[in-house]
């Protein structure tokens, strides 16, 4: 299928049509001077020019709180699948890269049906970045643009027109609602290429001084580097870096009893490895009680452990949210990785 071109007005009409499909459309909108993904009520609320959202769209594939089971207290449990058809509109390439990683993590080994079923029902309309955020470094991580993984990719051209490229059956099903949009010309496709080249160059407010693929090797030699202690001395163990991270997927599982005291549900909720009690077991023994060890664990997961699990791709996509969210200003992964790089001998 060819790439379609919309004028801003035609695009608004397309979004209005999407809103009538009956499926919830989650999209970036203004929120207290910043941006957040939320249910879209009208095309006018959509902000294709957003820089970065407070939380990543991860919250729709792995919600902050998700019911896994329902039960009668002390009785048997029954599976709950909460997923429903949904359109996720306006996902930046770095956030898409993070979702694709998470797909692999929940699919591989023991198949997590709760995640996968929810994910299968989501149609992702990605969007090339229009406004770089203050701390983005997606270019350094190779996620400033994407070539696959989306159902539709939107690119806003300099003249304000919008190109839409449907890559999957799910995407094509939606693009059929495009109405009066016309096929993009050669010149439009060249203009799109220029946007990609531009984004690959400018989404780089912090510059990683090596290819991301070298990070596992760098970390292999950096376990006892002083930087862990230096940075972690200032860490509040608040877990903000975990909460805003599009690739963090650790969760806690708990039971809750309903008001009738007879029934209840088991749910999972986001957790964070920087939080003090993340590795505490019954009897109060904490296997990672040092802040520096927790701080290091996070950066090892991003740069070594997860990549080794999913075939190489670094589990930091360069969104820069942790840099903005960290009160102590110690979360910048580029700063740490560059520092380690300086002190590493790469053969």
């Amino acid at each position, binding site marked *: 299928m060819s790439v379609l071109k919309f004028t801003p007005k035609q695009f608004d009409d397309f979004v209005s049509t999407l809103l009538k499909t009956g499926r919830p459309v989650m999209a970036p909108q203004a929120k207290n001077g910043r941006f957040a993904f939320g249910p879209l009520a009208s095309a006018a609320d959509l902000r294709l020019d957003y820089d970065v959202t407070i939380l990543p769209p991860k919250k729709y594939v792995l919600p902050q709180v998700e019911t896994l089971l329902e*039960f009668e207290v*002390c009785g048997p449990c029954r599976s709950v699948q909460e997923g429903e058809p949904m359109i996720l509109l306006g996902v930046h390439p770095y956030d898409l890269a993070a979702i694709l990683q998470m797909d692999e993590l929940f699919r591989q*080994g023991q198949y997590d*049906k709760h995640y996968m079923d929810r994910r299968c029902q989501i149609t992702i309309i990605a969007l090339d970045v229009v406004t770089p955020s203050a701390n983005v470094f997606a270019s350094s991580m190779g996620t400033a643009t994407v070539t696959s993984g989306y159902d539709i990719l939107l690119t806003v051209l300099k003249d304000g027109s919008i190109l839409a490229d449907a890559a999957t059956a799910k995407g094509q099903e939606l693009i059929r609602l495009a109405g009066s949009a016309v096929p993009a010309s050669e010149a439009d496709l060249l203009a799109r290429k220029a946007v990609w080249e531009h984004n690959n160059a400018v989404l780089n407010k912090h510059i990683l001084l090596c290819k991301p693929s070298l990070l596992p090797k760098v970390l292999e030699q950096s376990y006892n580097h002083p930087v862990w202690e230096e940075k972690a001395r200032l860490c509040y163990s608040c877990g903000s870096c975990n909460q805003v991270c599009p690739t963090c997927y650790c969760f806690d599982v708990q*039971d809750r009893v309903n008001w009738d005291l007879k029934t209840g549900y088991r749910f999972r909720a986001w957790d964070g490895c920087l939080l003090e009690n993340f590795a505490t077991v019954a009897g109060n*023994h904490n296997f990672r009680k040092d802040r520096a060890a927790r701080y290091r664990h996070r950066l090892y997961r991003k740069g*070594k452990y997860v990549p080794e699990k999913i075939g190489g791709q670094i589990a930091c996509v360069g969104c820069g949210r942790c840099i903005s969210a960290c009160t102590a200003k110690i979360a910048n992964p580029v700063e740490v990785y560059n520092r380690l790089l300086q002190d590493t001998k790469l053969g």
Partner: protein
Amino acid sequence: MCECCSGHPDIYLPQMATITKRRMLNGTELFLHLEMDSGEDLQYKPGQFVEVSLAGIGEAPISISSSPTQKGLELVVRNVGSLTKAIHKLQVGDKLGIRGPYGTTYPIEEAKGKDLVFICGGIGLVPQRSFIRYALDHRSDYGKIIVLIGTKCYSMRLFREEIALWQERRDMTVLETIDEAHDCWDGNVGVVTTLIPKIENELPGSLVLICGPPIMYKFVLISLAEAQVPEENIYVNLERRMKCGVGKCGHCQINDKYVCQDGPVFRYSDLALVPEAI
């Protein structure tokens, strides 16, 4: 539900099991014998664990203490948190949720023909008992069986009758110690490492299997290094917060290893590059 998911089971859904026997082993440890409501025995191997849950209270990883050579599933639950406190109130006939079994197993095949030395500290005897019983039920497959058991104090000793029966057997050696002296105890007093010199001659060539509280590993491993036991012959059974049991939630990670998948039983030589392990 989408097509690609409909064929997959829910990995978080527990099966029900009924308590068929229960007794306190000491002031804090409850022994449970369970049978699966499905009527089929759980297919597990020594060293593995299950996720035990009580709907409305929670779920926790618990080592399997029985051997697959016997019927039913045996667990020992220490009264230490809200879930285990509730489990302690359960009676015969009450039900628990069980997921699993999960994790790696003791090297039951590799160990064939070899001498086995079990070093158990406190509640660490619980998972070790699974392999000890398995080896006793396949007695001719294994060489010598030596069991060292250390307990903090006299009143906390576990499986006393069973240990007494083991001590009567001529085809195994069982040495016990308690950390703190007691009027009723005329055996060895001191931590479990004080038993190691008594069996030092048996260590070369043996497979040594260790399970106990975190602090114990460091000291036992020093003693074994002094006795020149190769790291390839040592197995440790590690505990972490195996919350999901299926390698997703991240709580049990030690460096790049997931205890729920890559452990809980690790060959010690495989942990050389895993500094968080011991």
